[in-house]
């Protein structure tokens, strides 16, 4: 916690200045402007005519009752949809990614090729993979229905992207397919860093594969895995393109980003849309702080054990 004093501090600030300026320009300015717009009645057709209206876009009350983003049931549905999406998809991706990483860790012929091939879903642009999944999940001529019918698992074709009960599942499946390789890659990188000595020692002590994983490998890769989960969760909170292509217009799968875009672009309501965008930003910021606090607490807890 020693602060550089005098000359040292000045040099430090000078070295930091370019980064800080760039950050202020590319992140700070747009963010400040979005928050400003969220306090106005700006309309996309004529941004110059925006008037300051205070927190009315967020929450206000007139003779009809409450209105604003926070009083919109659709916004809360979007919050719920996004949360469900993040929790389910990130959990599945982490578990599957870890399993794939463990397989790829083992030595077998053609391992390099398989490691590269696994990354293909991650390399395909989301727009393309979403459209591809849209066709595969099509209720009348989709591959998935055909396959499941042939296997006798379903009696009649299911409307994957249209049925309110299935649409979110379809979105999650497509996302898990796409992003599991990313989690596998990060898990594999963590596994490579586990010292062979530890594993050898565990074997000498007579621990089986499961025990070795549970008590040696997992604790050692946990910090890296946590970072991967945080990265992935923050990214998933912004989910937009997959939902926009796979289930356009549906309120059953509307995420916070889709909600904000609808207000900003479809309705041209820059003020209200900016309020939704700002709320999404605060939501993600709160999650980030939460994760940071948790990850700081954990090593102490681990040391105590």
């Amino acid at each position, binding site marked *: 916690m020693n602060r550089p004093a005098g000359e040292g501090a000045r040099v430090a600030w000078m070295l930091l200045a370019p980064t800080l300026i760039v950050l202020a320009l590319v992140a700070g300015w747009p963010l400040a402007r979005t928050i400003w717009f969220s306090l106005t009645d700006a309309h996309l057709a004529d941004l110059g005519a925006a008037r300051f209206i205070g927190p009315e876009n967020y929450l206000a009350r007139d003779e009809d009752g409450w209105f604003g983003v926070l009083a919109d049931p659709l916004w809360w549905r979007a919050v719920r949809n996004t949360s469900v999406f993040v929790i389910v998809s990130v959990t599945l991706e982490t578990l599957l990614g870890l399993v794939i990483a463990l397989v790829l860790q083992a030595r077998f012929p053609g391992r390099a090729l398989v490691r590269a091939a696994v990354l293909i879903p991650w390399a395909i642009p989301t727009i393309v993979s979403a459209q591809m999944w849209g066709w595969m999940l099509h209720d009348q001529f989709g591959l998935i229905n055909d396959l499941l019918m042939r296997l006798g698992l379903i009696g009649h*074709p299911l409307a994957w*992207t249209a049925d*309110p009960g299935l649409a979110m599942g379809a979105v999650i499946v497509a996302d898990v397919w796409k992003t599991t390789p990313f989690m596998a890659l990060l898990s594999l990188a963590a596994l490579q860093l586990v010292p062979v000595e530890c594993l050898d020692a565990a074997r000498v002590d007579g621990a089986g594969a499961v025990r070795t994983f549970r008590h040696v490998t997992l604790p050692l890769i946990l910090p890296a895995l946590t970072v991967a989960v945080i990265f*992935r969760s923050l990214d998933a909170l*912004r989910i937009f*393109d997959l939902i926009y292509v796979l289930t356009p217009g549906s*309120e059953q799968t509307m995420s916070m980003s889709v909600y904000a875009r*609808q207000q*900003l672009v479809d309705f041209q309501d820059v003020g209200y849309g900016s309020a939704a965008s700002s709320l999404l930003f605060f939501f993600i910021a709160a999650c980030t702080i939460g994760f940071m606090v948790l990850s700081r607490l954990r090593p102490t807890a681990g040391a105590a054990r």
Partner: protein
Amino acid sequence: MVAMKPGRRFLEFVVVVMVTMAGATAAEISVSCGAVGRELELCRSGAEAWAGSTGNEVRVVTAPSATNERLALYQQLLAARAPDVDVFQIDVIWPGILGNHFVDLGDRFRGQRQAFFPEMVANNTVDGRLVAIPWFASVGMLYYRKDLLDKHRLEVPGTWAELKETARKIQAAERESGNTKIWGYVWQGRAYEGLTCNALEWIASHGGGTIVDPSGAVTIDNPRAVAALDQAAGWVGTISPRGVLNYAEEDARGVFQSGNAVFMRNWPYAWSLAQAEDSPVRGQVAVAPLPAGGKDGERATTLGGWQLAVSRYSRHPELAADLVRYLTSAAEQRRRAIVAAYIPTRPVLLEDPDVLRENPFFRFVAETLPDAIARPSSVTGSAYNRVSNRTWNAVHGVLAGRTNATAALAKLERDLKRLHRRGGW
């Protein structure tokens, strides 16, 4: 690496890149066309014919096929005063929303207005300015498989109730005889502008009004509208696949044209495609007006159609207007009608023998067109997007079984009235 997801600006970016590349040489006119069915192909061939005869160049910029998504894109381009697209193809419901961004074509089309349907010219006139020229008209139509109706000795349905009964009978009989993929009726049920068009037809045919009446009053919460939606909700999962809840025009056509539906609601563009060489249902398709609401109900069809407008930010407004004049000319509209069944906006072409021979159904189009129901876009102006969005979401909820028609329409009426009060229109 985490930030690889293209955000909401992605589409905008793609188009900006496309149009920037397109705007490389000086006398080049960019025209943004739709891409539903053969739209793009015909737009390109027409624009290139103009370019060839005038010595200019044209670039055809494609846009999303869902109309509400295209509107969003155009709004961004026009709000940014982008000079990259000179001629825009705009929907019949957009003149009120986008009119300020377009050149007044009144002077350039002096003496020619009378050649077009007066309703369409009136629709495209905003505050006395003629902001767009009607290019092709559109009405909702009932496509049916005449081979299947003949086989089962059934008549073309005159009411929605008859349609359900006929569809149910044929679907059951065909499935019995091994055609397991057949469905009775496909239409546009995705939560988008197309659903508003479909719902308006159901509601208006039951005498349930037009959501917002011409004076601006919200009229959607009425027993006839409730009956219309209840009826439509009864189709989902019985005569229509549940997937219809995510179908737009092309999804419905995909099912119908591959021979897997008895009836389809669609726009006229689907005619020439269903009758094309490579269509599995070629020669087995016929069209009829959409059914009436009931014994005392009437037939209703939503007025669609597309206009051509010249951007105020164009660098070559004169050339762009000339391209519009060419594309909306009688000769070009006649070609489009014969080749791809696009309904001309000039009444005289609807009596042209060659056009009628190729498209026999133009006879009833000529009758229904003047009575086609306009969506409440003029009266709601720039709030139309929200009105339509609330409408299609309410209807979608009823169709999907998440809520019932009585509750959904009562809530829709409350929402629209609040929008109205808060300065929507």
